[in-house]
């Protein structure tokens, strides 16, 4: 429930001054999520998979991860969606490790790396910060996740 702390901290005038924020005195409190925007959201792509195909063709490095105790956009949702890309496997499915513990499972495809993060909810770095940092370092280096 840590976003409650943010609701207090970022509405403090001294914090907004230090951040050079809210200079126009917006007529509503700063909030972590805008209900107004969410309820009035207009155009939304039915599927992002066509853009994945363009990014893969464009040679971008693409990593997709999933915290496996989230039920809002869960790991099976991502797996069903990515399966539609029908990518060739480069490195078959294996468990990856962080500090001698299974961090999750991963598979490296031609053009995309998928990884689960064991025991992490929707906000992976909140629940598994050490594993998330290792995931990020591997992504930035362009290296498969460690097998031990």
């Amino acid at each position: 429930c840590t976003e409650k702390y943010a609701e207090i901290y970022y509405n403090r005038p001294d914090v907004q001054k230090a951040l050079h924020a809210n200079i126009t005195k917006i007529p509503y409190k700063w909030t972590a999520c805008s209900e107004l925007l969410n309820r009035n959201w207009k155009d939304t792509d039915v599927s992002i998979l066509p853009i994945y195909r363009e990014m893969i063709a464009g040679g971008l490095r693409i990593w997709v991860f999933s915290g496996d105790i989230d039920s809002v956009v869960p790991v099976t949702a991502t797996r069903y969606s990515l399966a539609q890309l029908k990518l060739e496997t480069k490195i078959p499915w294996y468990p990856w490790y962080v500090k001698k513990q299974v961090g999750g499972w991963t598979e490296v495809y031609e053009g995309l790396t998928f990884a689960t993060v064991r025991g992490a909810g929707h906000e992976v770095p909140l629940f598994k910060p050490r594993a998330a940092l290792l995931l990020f370092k591997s992504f930035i280096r362009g290296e498969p996740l460690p097998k031990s």
Partner: protein
Amino acid sequence: NEEEEADRILQLPGQPKVSFQQYSGYVTVNHVAGRALFYWLTEADHNPLSKPLVIWLNGGPGCSSVAYGASEEIGPFRINKTASGLYYNKFSWNTVANLLFLETPAGVGFSYSNQSSDLFNSGDRRTAKDSLEFLLRWLDRFPRYKQREVYITGESYAGHYVPQLAKEIMMYNKHSKYPINLKGIMVGNAVTDNYYDNLGTVTYWWSHAMISDKTYRQLINTCDFTHQKESNECDSVYSYAMDQEFGNIDQYNIYAPPCN
């Protein structure tokens, strides 16, 4: 660069001493409407000039990268329980990169529009264009990042924002003399495809024993996942599943109680 200097953060209230630089402020993305996006840059704690630039976007839509990404996920600071100050996050991603948190679109967090109607007609398309406009003008303000490796990361509905911004950049690069050095994207628990996301979600609920066999069969038989808007029958099965069978849990972290 005066604009950059004006954005430099000297010290946040209750912040621990750190060695890296921070900047935050506004970039106007549409002068006519007066739309401006708010950003917070926390540079890498070692050799920032040699580290990549990583943009982090949260989803919602409507949720703030300052509230989530920066303050409880990958940023260098966590807010303490009384919101009186900050403490250091030793697993911050700014140990390996320069982190740029962007509140997009206008209406999210501190980002605003002088045209109040903008808050009622945001969508994927304009968000992607405004975010590209932000990045181009932000790079003018911070020219040392112009040739830097750029990665775009995010989670949840940013499963839309991140690829859509990447696509905007790829199209921009086709016609620009000064292309943005976009190297890759990384997304987590990302909204990707309506049909397969929904099918996978009810499958997860069933395989993790969150709903009964009966409700699972009803969801599969009643709901047409290809549609954006579900039928009333389908909605009522979803409501029953969440209200009666999930029980009192945090859907974002299923083995924990909800935040009140």
